[in-house]
């Protein structure tokens, strides 16, 4: 006989939102983090767990176009919102986005565990500021830890991405 049954019970909630452009509906427990829901239930494993305290940024996603740490976001709070994960970054043609392309070309990653955060943060930054200075890039990335690169190649990749995006918009 289970003695602690009551302690384990949580009422479930109905979550409806969009993930990478697709409508999603799920019964979840209120304590489920957005990170766990994306990874465990939707199998979108491109979003990573690094600290569960919101410090490392490996779990970064976009909520309505703004970056957020999915490990400290309860899934139940994203009702009717649009979620974008790293898997949703590709362009409409299925090709890599200019930011992704620049990160690959300029080696803006090594182990790439932090890549979801770096790519989404860079994407957000370049939407707001198409030609950021090095200091602006570093400030924008300050919520994301990378342990491999020392940030030098990431900063270079963001600059390269800015150049690609400006070229594309000039076309």
């Amino acid at each position, binding site marked *: *006989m*289970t*003695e*602690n*049954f009551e*302690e*384990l019970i949580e009422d479930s909630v109905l979550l409806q939102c969009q993930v990478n452009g697709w409508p999603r509906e799920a019964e979840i427990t209120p*304590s489920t983090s957005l990170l766990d829901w994306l*990874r465990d239930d939707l*199998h*979108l*494993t*491109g*979003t*990573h*767990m*690094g*600290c*569960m*305290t919101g*410090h490392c940024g*490996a779990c970064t996603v976009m909520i309505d176009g703004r970056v957020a740490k999915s490990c400290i976001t309860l899934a139940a709070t994203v009702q009717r919102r649009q979620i974008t*994960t*790293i*898997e949703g*970054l*590709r362009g409409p043609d299925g090709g*890599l986005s200019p930011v*992704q*392309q620049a*990160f*690959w*070309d300029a*080696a803006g*990653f*090594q*182990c*790439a*565990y*932090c*890549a979801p955060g770096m790519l989404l943060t860079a994407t957000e930054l370049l939407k707001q500021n198409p030609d950021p200075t*090095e*200091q602006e*890039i*570093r400030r924008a*990335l*300050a*919520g*994301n*830890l*990378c*342990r*491999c*690169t*020392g*940030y*030098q*190649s*990431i*900063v270079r990749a963001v600059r390269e991405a800015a150049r690609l995006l400006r070229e594309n918009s000039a076309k």
Partner: protein
Amino acid sequence: MSESGGNDAAYVGRPVRVLQGDAFVAGHAKYTSDFQFQGQLHAHLVRSPHAAARIKRVDVSGALKVAGVVMAMEGKEAAEHLDPVPHYIDPAVFGGKSVPIRCLAIDHVWCYGQPVAVVVAEDKRTARYAASKVLVEYEPILAVLDAEAALEPGAPVVVPGWGDNSIMALPFANGDAEAAFKRAHRVVGTTIRIHRFSTQPIETRVYNAVWEEETEGITFYGTSQNPHPLRYVLSRALRMPENRIRIVAPAVGGAFGMKMHGHPEEALVCLLARRTRRPVKWVEDREECLLIGAREQLHRVELALSKEGDILGLRDRAIANTGAPSACPGWGMAFLTGLTMPGPYRVQDLDVTMNIVATNKPSWNASRGYGKEATALALELAIDNAAREMGLDPIEMRIRNFVPKEAFPYPSPTGLVYDSGDYAGCVRRSLEALGYEVWKRERDSGRKEGRYLGIGLAYELTPEGGAIPGTMVAGFDSSTVRVSPDGSVLLLTGVTTPGTGNPTGMAQIVADELGVPIEAIRIVQGDTTTCPYGFGNYSGRSTIVGGGAAAMAAREVRAKIATLAAALLGVPAESIRIERGVIRTSATSDKTLSIAEVAYAAYTRAYDVGLSITPPLEATCTFRPGLIRHTPDEKGRINPYPSYSNAAYATVCEVDIETGQVRLLKFAVAHDCGKVINPLLVEGQACGAISFGVGGILHEEIRFDSRGKQLTQSFVDYVMPRALDMPGVAVVHHDSPNPVTYMGLKGAGEAGVGGSAAAVVNAVNDALAPLGVSIYELPLTAPRVWAAIEAARRRQAPPARREQAA
């Protein structure tokens, strides 16, 4: 050695972008925690809240009553099914004290966080919850946390049954240090305290053991740097033959030594999978990851100096606080610290002892630098201090004492043989890249305006590619090159990647040696069933040995292709040229073949043209670099390293003397990693190591309360550098090729933590020199720097004012 030398079409030497990088930027790379299997169970560990205690009773029945719990186990039950975990490097190999390591504590805990029990449940939340229902009755006993205190007579003994806490005290002595100190013009002593800090990859450790009912075997998916040696360790602990265990190390999210094995959770999840006959997964949380320590050492360095600043003798009484015993290879870092003395300097009269001490802090594991960072910190801080005391220029003092570039191969006083280098050249080029003269003027004029700028230089000699006799730290490795009937190329290798880019480097080598486009190559690493036997990733070895072996295998396969192509074309084999997948002959006109045509023939025409070769189109080779010597010399010394990478680190900082905050304005490194395969990847390694050094010396510290409870439990407390904290780094390649490795490689992955950290300390002390402040107790956090400035101010303030202030 390479046929591709001087070839414009060569991949080697170029900034080729990362192979298969689209998976990484699109979120499709699969890390261990991304694997989820049918019937997946989750494990959660119960850990000791005490640094030292007797375990009176463990009761897991409360956990077993929670709905969804499948199994719960404490130490005694686990020991019925599991033997001790074999040591990666057994201290007994070096004549030290050794103790069997159990996955779960039995009767006694010797550090905070030691695993005591484990709970397995249908989901991770239930496992965590149920773990809180395990009752453990402890009787806390006195813990010892400080290494010096642990050596005092009558100190609490960490390991029951040991007479004292010294694991071993190793001498590294040569020449006549006593005489050198007698004839010295001056002796300068420096006491350096290196704190406990850690590597903290963003991906924590994850293990997922799958019980294979069909073969009664286990497939272990894990964050492992060394799958083959881990298979041996698991087979011993689990009492299973190695041929029933398969280790798969998928994409790894950074390792830096922390994912070398010996961790209790590895064998434990396998046992749980075998007992439940279901897949069992364990994901380390950050709090657990922060338990793994490293680097904490105390050095009392004395330099015997001539009037001109020649180092005549070196004495160091070093003590390493390696925490509680473990099967991981962490403690060996302290051995390397001693062995690497006196770094790049030519002093031969040496009297160094390294006392490796057990305490009730959690255990160490290997950390990038593997003790060589501590050598650099101790030496480089001591030299700056000596130069300051003597009124000499610290840069000139270094150049004066370096092993000169004509002296290689150079026998070090501890028995190592340095392969090659140009240390003075690296210093010169690092200062050029820094803009030394400009910064010197800026510093001097700043001082008049109340700005505290400082310039720091430090050198690091980083032996790479190590091989320790009698352990699974081996010097050689193997690679297989396989060309399939369609002409595509598979490279399988025993070295693994923690995400450094070594697969790209090795693919560049194979593409050149084989004569194929790099896009035709795919690499498989980290699978004990498909890859040739190898030792994985450590000691900056991957491209040296994995790449060397791949080059040899590619050459063998190329010879087969050339022979077969010659037979197909009816021309002499010597006339065959293979470039970017196209086979030409200089003998007959313009007839060409593709690799695919030759490959198909190799598999389908074994009894006509194929008789000229031994099918299939495949070769496995082993590369075993020279210079390593395991037969002791007349003084009983060995040389475990084939390769001696080295670099000069230079930095400029500004100290805010009101807050103690240090800001780096510029960083430069001139390094010698031998031949550069891919400048993009090498620069990435150098910059990454520098951010380890900068963060480690300015912010990162693992702290404990007086009873041994760890206070550092998350990234709130463990502060690693962010993009804004890092200055731009100018990277200069100043290479001298290693004569005993493929293409002169020296290794580029490990070096830089100690050299960059020491450069920062020297810069801070230079900045604070006008205040009479120099700090050798690390890290240089703002409060510590501020306190040192305040103490100096109080010392210098007139006595009357001091009384007033009181």
